[in-house]
């Protein structure tokens, strides 16, 4: 496979030189020399190379995708009739056996003769396919090369065609990103709809009891499951609130210090340092929260006679707040720096002190941007998973007390989907519904935040 790609690349390189040389040769025949060509010789070379390379590589790609299913259906149709009449599931097992035999993943002699025969046939079909693929690909490449070479003439608009192909390629790349996102959203949406067919949306959105364990078999002892997500929403909001209480003031104040007060040298040193905080993996924050902060808070609580859960919302919220500080400070720093120097000059020129300037002029001018930044930070806090998984706990308590254990939407999604699951129970589908809620909330927050930030930017540019 890699050999054939290499061969195609070499062919394309050759095509480039052939195309370019032909263009140059044609040009020397015209009156204007190189100016007689519509495009630069290199464009003709690229045009030929692309015609040579792209169709062939596309063929390889499609071939590789289609090959296994074509060969499999052929092998199945050649199996003995009684095997073919097995049910779909058991036929699948036979096919698996054949594939394993082909790949040498089974001990020799452990398979029935008909499977071995089928495996041999599968192997030979695969070899034939590989040979055919090489022949077709090279033929297509050579065909493309010949076609491109023949097409070259001084009036051909090679540059426009090459740029058209490049545009098409770029569009294809961006479509991949867009379609993937769309696919994810749709899959979450459809699974959520399946969930809401079993559990009414009103119960999910307004119920106060969360207990997703359901009995799998009729004779099992188990709860029938309760899917009231309010405790999760409250827990998420509580933790996000604690996080923002930490991150908003500290991040904002440090941004003000860095942009208005810090000498150049301190800024050059402190700003990257603060941004390193953003580079710490969240799982590290997670065990910091679970193993250091939570026990410490519990210890302090006990020493003043409070009962603190060992996995408290406070611990998770504090650590999450620290995680978000660089996010808030970096965004606020940017908007504060975007306030024109003229505003500062105006205030200083009136005899305002630094703090008066910051308080009365800079912060009001930067406020919309700062609010936008804080909203983005909130949406990060809501979507954050690792810290809360490790430090917040699983108990779906409906409480606003930060010293108790709470659980969040993200934690429940993780719990619902880890381990062996059947994908049609309400329990598993609930994860999609939670994901949908999370998605909608963060999407709305981001849209508002971006809108606010953009509106603010128009003010000065």
């Amino acid at each position: 496979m890699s050999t054939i790609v290499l061969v195609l690349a070499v062919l394309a390189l050759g095509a480039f030189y052939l195309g370019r040389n032909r263009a140059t040769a044609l040009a020397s025949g015209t009156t204007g020399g190189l100016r007689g060509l519509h495009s630069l010789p290199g464009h003709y070379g690229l045009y030929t190379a692309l015609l040579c390379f792209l169709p062939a590589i596309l063929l390889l790609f499609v071939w590789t995708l289609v090959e296994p299913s074509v060969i499999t259906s052929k092998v199945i149709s050649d199996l003995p009739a009684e095997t073919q009449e097995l049910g779909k599931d058991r036929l699948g097992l036979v096919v698996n056996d054949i594939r394993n035999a082909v790949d040498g993943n089974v001990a020799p002699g452990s398979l029935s003769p008909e499977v071995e025969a089928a495996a041999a046939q599968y192997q030979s079909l695969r070899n034939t396919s590989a040979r055919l693929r090489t022949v077709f690909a090279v033929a297509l490449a050579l065909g493309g090369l010949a076609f491109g070479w023949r097409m070259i003439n001084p009036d051909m608009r090679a540059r426009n065609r090459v740029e058209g192909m490049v545009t098409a390629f770029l569009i294809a790349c961006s479509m991949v990103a867009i379609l993937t996102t769309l696919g994810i959203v749709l899959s979450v949406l459809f699974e959520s709809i399946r969930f809401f067919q079993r559990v009414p949306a009103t119960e999910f959105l307004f119920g106060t009891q969360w207990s997703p364990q359901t009995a799998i078999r009729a004779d099992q002892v188990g709860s029938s499951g309760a899917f009231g997500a309010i405790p999760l929403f409250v827990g998420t909001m509580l933790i996000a609130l604690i996080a923002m209480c930490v991150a908003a003031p500290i991040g904002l104040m440090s941004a003000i210090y860095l942009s208005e007060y810090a000498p150049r040298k301190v800024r050059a040193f402190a700003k990257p340092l603060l941004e390193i905080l953003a580079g710490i993996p969240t799982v590290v924050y997670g065990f910091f929260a679970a193993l250091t902060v939570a026990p410490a808070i519990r210890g302090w609580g006990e020493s003043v006679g409070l009962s603190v859960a060992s996995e408290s919302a406070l611990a998770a919220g504090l650590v999450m707040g620290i995680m978000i500080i660089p996010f808030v400070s970096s965004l606020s720093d940017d908007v504060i720096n975007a306030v024109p120097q003229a505003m500062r000059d105006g205030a200083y020129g009136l005899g305002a002190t630094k703090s008066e300037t910051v308080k009365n002029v800079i912060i009001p001018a930067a406020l919309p941007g700062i609010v936008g930044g804080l909203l983005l930070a909130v949406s990060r806090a809501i979507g954050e998973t690792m810290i809360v998984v490790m430090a917040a706990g699983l108990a779906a308590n409906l409480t606003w007390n930060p010293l108790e254990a709470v659980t969040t939407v993200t934690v429940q999604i993780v719990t619902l989907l880890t381990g062996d699951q059947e994908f049609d129970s309400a329990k598993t589908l609930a994860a999609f519904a939670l994901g949908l809620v999370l998605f909608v909330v963060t999407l709305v927050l981001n849209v508002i935040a971006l809108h606010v930030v953009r509106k603010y930017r128009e003010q000065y540019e």
Partner: protein
Amino acid sequence: MNRPDAGKAPIEEVNAPIRESAEDALSARSADIPEKTVGNITHADPVMVCRGVDVFYGDKQAIFGVDLDVGRHQVISMIGPSGCGKSTFLRCLNRMNDTIDIARVNGNIELDGKNIYASDVDVVPLRARVGMVFQKPNPFPKSIYENVAYGPRIHGLAKDKVELEEIVHTSLEKAGLLGEVKDRMDQPGTGLSGGQQQRLCIARAIAVSPEIILMDEPCSALDPIATAKIEDLIDELKQNYTIAIVTHSMQQAARVSQRTAYFHLGYLVEVDETDKIFTNPSHKLTEDYITGRFG
């Protein structure tokens, strides 16, 4: 968003061609620039007296030993080609250069006999006494009323609301803006036209009752009609205030000022009565500049 210092672009002079070294400057000086400022640097009733003022941006020297008196209740204009240091010098007079990290000022600048660069001088009251109006109108993103009330508020100039309102009204009136804005005092100052914004900035500066108002090319962003209004205003203001104005327009300097100082490459080449400078300049550089041979 990734422009860490975008909003804090240094003032014009930092980017302007500044002499690479003192040695270059000396060679240029021996060629054209006079050893001593030509004309008359002194004034009978000076409010500010500057002697031997040097300004450095980092290693580069932008102003070389300027001696100049600013006379009370008159307008002095500073002219010269771009990058000659006139704005930098103006900003020394209320220590606005302090806001630039790398700027350093040597020499003596006395306001009523007291060196404003002395270690015991606080810039806050100094800037209340020496106000400033900038090239680009820069009203705060607040209401018209709040823009003017800001200075009196931070300096505690008004005992109560009534008095504050009076200060705001008087200042707007002096700036010739009251009639145009008195029905919309609560609307944002940024919504006014460019000329109105600049007069709002002048009103804002007047509101803290300064003795001196520095104006750094106050009309360069305005159309001719707005410019004429500001010039009339400057003419009236000189009854009660001392005004130092930097301008690129020689006609403007001739129209509004009583004395004119010509700067060249960081040196004060000539200073004299405005009539004398524009009719009979003593130095060749001044003559070349005002006759439009360069600049």
